[in-house]
């Protein structure tokens, strides 16, 4: 057994060297194992991971959007409720104010009425008093006039009653 190095020989163009085939197999196997381990699987994993990350991000974004949408709806509802509440408060206040207004008005009217009534009574009283005064005066004057006219003393009591009667008749006429 001996080696012959750097021969000048060439193989046939259509080679039949099975050693070459075995060597090709070995090379293919080694290449397969190494390329798969060093390149194909890492690249595939990297792509898959990136894809997964992107998918996650999208899913996350969709979820967040959903949550935001829900928040928005909740806020809108709250806002609407607040509006309604303020409306209610306003209406209530209005109602109360109206009631108060009526009350005040009524009281004022009552008071006015009372005052007027009192004033009327006062006037009536005053009228009566004035009338009496006038009556006294007029009857006095009449007696005086009559006594001076007749020239004699007149029974004051009788005439007074007569005159009073006359005046009250006048009062009725007026």
């Amino acid at each position, binding site marked *: *057994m*001996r*080696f*012959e*190095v*750097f*021969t000048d*020989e*060439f*193989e*046939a*163009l*259509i*080679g*039949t*060297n*099975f*050693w*070459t*085939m*075995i*060597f*090709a*197999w070995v*090379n*293919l196997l*080694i*290449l*397969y194992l*190494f*390329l*798969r381990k*060093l*390149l*194909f*699987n*890492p*690249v*595939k994993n*990297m*792509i898959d*991971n*990136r894809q997964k*990350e992107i998918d996650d991000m999208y899913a996350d974004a969709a979820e967040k959007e959903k949550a935001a949408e829900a928040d928005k709806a909740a806020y809108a509802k709250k806002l609407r409720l607040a509006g309604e509440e303020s409306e209610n408060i306003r209406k209530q206040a209005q109602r109360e104010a109206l009631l108060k207004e009526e009350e005040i008005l009524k009281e004022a009217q009552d008071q006015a009425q009372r005052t007027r009534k009192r004033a009327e009574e006062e006037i009536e009283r005053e009228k009566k008093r004035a009338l009496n005064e006038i009556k006294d005066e007029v009857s006095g004057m009449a007696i005086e006039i009559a006594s001076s006219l007749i020239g004699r003393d007149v029974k004051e009591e009788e005439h007074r009653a007569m005159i009073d009667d006359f005046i009250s008749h006048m009062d009725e006429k007026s």
Partner: protein
Amino acid sequence: MDDLELGNGAKVYVKLWLNDHFSINLVTQTTVSLFVVTVTLILLAFFIGRNLKKRPSRLQVLVEKGITAFYGIVEDTMGKHNMKYAPYILTVFLSSVFGSLIGMTQIFRSTTADLMVVMGWALVTSALCWYEGIKNNGFLGWLKGYTEPIAVMTPMNVISEVAQPISMAFRHFGNVTGGGVLTTLIYAALAALTHVVFCWLPPQILSWIPPVFQIGIPAFLSIYFDLFSGFVQAFVFSLLTMVYVGSANPPPAEETAKNN
């Protein structure tokens, strides 16, 4: 005109004589090229695979795109259930491309210009087909498959089974070797053209004139015969592997039902 490499195979570097009459060619140009291709690819894979990032560099984008595209072709051709073969087929593809292109260095000989290399790969394809056939149908069922559709067809089926790796191997080998042979022929023709064009010169000067037409023109031809043909043949070889192995391992019944 020396076209001495035209009809030759790989140069024998180390020959092992087992006895006085029997020898094996232990190391040839092809084995050296195979070794160089393997080391180159492993180093490339190492340096690219080492620096993978979530935010890829340009090179990584290119590599990812390439691998994704190739895996996509494998998936389209073989189906999702055969994706375990994708790394192997991509390995064959890369071996073939680099093996063909290494011939362009003019230092190494294309590995695929050696029939035994491509025959080895083609036999692996056949072996994978047989493995899938036996796995899916059992050994007897697989043998019975050769008698279908009728028993008379058995010899034809056996011949086609034998012809499959041979045709695959010779197709690839023939294209690459043919390209090489053509390139050699064109170089010779261009050298002759130099002689023809400058034939009016005295012979003493003519022998000193370099073959000027050999500059430039072969480069364009090389783009087709080496670069383009190298890729196409690698692709064809991978595609045939996908088709053969894929048809030996059809998709499971429920998956077919689902698709229909």
